[in-house]
């Protein structure tokens, strides 16, 4: 009995606990309010709907833990999807196209990283710039008209293996990999260190520039993957794909307990954050909540999810 309490208390110390609690509350409520909620099909839908945000948020989480921010992910999603689709259309080679899409994401990330590390541009502004540039290039490449997408991308975005959405599986695998990476590898731990105190980390021998470049590149790569999944799911690469995604992605990261000031955060939290947001959207559809109340509810849930944590913890920096 007492050990249960202790376990609960230990859990409470984790920042992601309050979001997890919120997730459970919403889930329990939904399972009473809608007979369809617990249907495996519906639960897997929620998983699939969370997957792109979650995958991109994995990269964003590392960026934010390392004290950066990447506003360009939404546009990179769009550009990568368009590049992949155009290459497939023009060469007919699917693998080349997908590779080109991922490479595009990676390059965008590297550009962000270089703007930050070489030109010393504040990442907020640097990625705000690439947000615009990447979107503009996607529009220029397509003349604003969506390009059809299919094949492997469609399988990844919309296919199922044994009934489980491929993109959801991919999300799970990536989340585990990034989690292990972040807590077990040297680079991963160095990301936390540079986010906590960049100067001290540098003096202690952490290569600031390389680490920063890495996290932006990785985030770009995952955004590229997100673009391919999303366009695959829709079977269409729209140059406007992913508009506004940056806010969802960052919200998932922060909801999951990552500090915007760097140095702290967990991958599990990020996944929970993304799931909570997808669950809310699912709830709106299942319960038939009117659009305007959806907007209000979403805001309230976000606030409550974090208020629990804040109240328990008290101010930190004061």
């Amino acid at each position, binding site marked *: 009995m007492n050990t249960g309490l202790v376990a609960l208390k230990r859990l409470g110390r984790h920042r992601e606990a309050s979001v997890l609690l919120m997730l459970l509350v919403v889930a329990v409520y939904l399972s009473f309010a809608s007979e369809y909620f617990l249907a495996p099909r519906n639960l897997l839908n929620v998983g699939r709907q969370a997957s792109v945000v979650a995958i991109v948020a994995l990269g964003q989480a590392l960026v934010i833990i390392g004290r950066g921010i990447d506003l360009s992910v939404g546009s990179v999603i769009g550009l990568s999807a368009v590049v992949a689709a155009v290459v497939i259309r023009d060469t007919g080679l699917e693998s080349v196209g997908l590779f080109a899409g991922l490479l595009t994401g990676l390059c965008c990330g590297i550009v962000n990283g270089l703007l930050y590390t070489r030109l010393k541009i504040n990442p907020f502004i640097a990625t705000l710039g690439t947000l615009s540039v990447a979107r503009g290039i996607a529009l220029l490449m397509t003349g604003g008209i969506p390009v059809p997408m299919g094949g492997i991308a469609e399988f990844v975005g919309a296919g199922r293996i044994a009934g489980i959405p491929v993109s959801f599986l991919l999300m799970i695998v990536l989340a585990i990999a990034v989690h292990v990476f972040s807590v077990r590898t040297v680079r991963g731990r160095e990301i936390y260190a540079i986010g906590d105190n960049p100067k001290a980390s540098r003096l202690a021998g952490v290569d600031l520039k390389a680490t920063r470049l890495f996290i932006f590149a990785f985030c770009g790569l995952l955004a590229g993957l997100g673009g391919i999944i999303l366009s695959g799911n829709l079977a269409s690469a*729209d140059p406007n794909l992913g508009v506004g995604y940056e806010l969802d992605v960052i919200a998932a990261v922060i909801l999951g307990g990552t500090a915007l000031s760097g140095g702290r955060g967990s991958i599990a939290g990020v996944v929970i954050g993304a799931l909570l947001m997808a669950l809310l959207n699912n709830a*709106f559809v299942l319960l038939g909540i009117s659009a305007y109340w959806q907007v209000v509810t979403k805001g309230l849930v976000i606030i409550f999810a974090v208020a629990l944590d804040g109240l328990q913890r008290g101010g930190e920096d004061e």
Partner: protein
Amino acid sequence: AEPPKGGTVAAVENTKGPIKIAFLSFQNNPFWTPVTDGAKAANDYLKGFNATVDFVDLGNELSAEAVVAGIEGALAKQYNGIVVVPIFDGTARIINEATEAGVPVFNIVAEGAAPSERLAFIGQDATSAGEQIGKFIQEKMNGKGKLGVITGYFGATQHTQRMNGAVDYLKANAPDIQIVGPFENKDKAEEAYSLVQDMMTSNPDLSMVYVTAGGPFGAAKAVKDLGLTGKVGVVGFDHTPDNMQYLKTGEMVGLLDQAPYQQALDASVMLYNYLVAGTEPPAKVIPVVGNLLTPADAK
């Protein structure tokens, strides 16, 4: 039976037992009000036939992902049929999936260019609506002068089709009309306002502004504030109160609508008929010709 008021299709007798139809649509501006009303009217009308039309709100941000999530949700809730506002290219796949799963889908208002297995589409063809506006502009400008073009979002299919429908028509039929732009206003009236101000600065001889999507009244307000009422006209879409107001005062010279109420109502009834009696809709694409209002109609 009689067709409901405002609709053109009558329901057939229900021999199948209870029918559930999901009506998926957005809600973020006055355009959607008649759509919602149409869905409600369909529900009221079909209630007498042991069928319900549930309005499911997809939220206030229009995106393909929201449509996909909505259809997935409707499938999970085991509706017999779905009426949806698909708008985007990327929705074709999930529509096909629903159709394969035995849940017919009726598209209304706007659909992507990618073909899908939907039961039918009722709505306005954006390109021909653009052409319709193009013709109107040609007449209004007497085939010459400068036309400013403001589009909602670069890359939004419907916006682009409306824009190109008009611009291509004018290029072919009225080569003396010079196009200024296009510029993007992100569906915002305040951006349209600023754009018109700046367009008038660099093109004092501009005589017409075409706004393809959201916020035409911002352009009209700019014309009014610049004291150019009567010299410069604005054409755009949708009979919302904001836009109609400037039709009365004369800054707005043409407003095309999409008969959204009728689309919503007829689609629901046709889908019901298909579900209970297998009655196919009259065509795969049922065009709705918009009603083009001019200041004369507003008085």
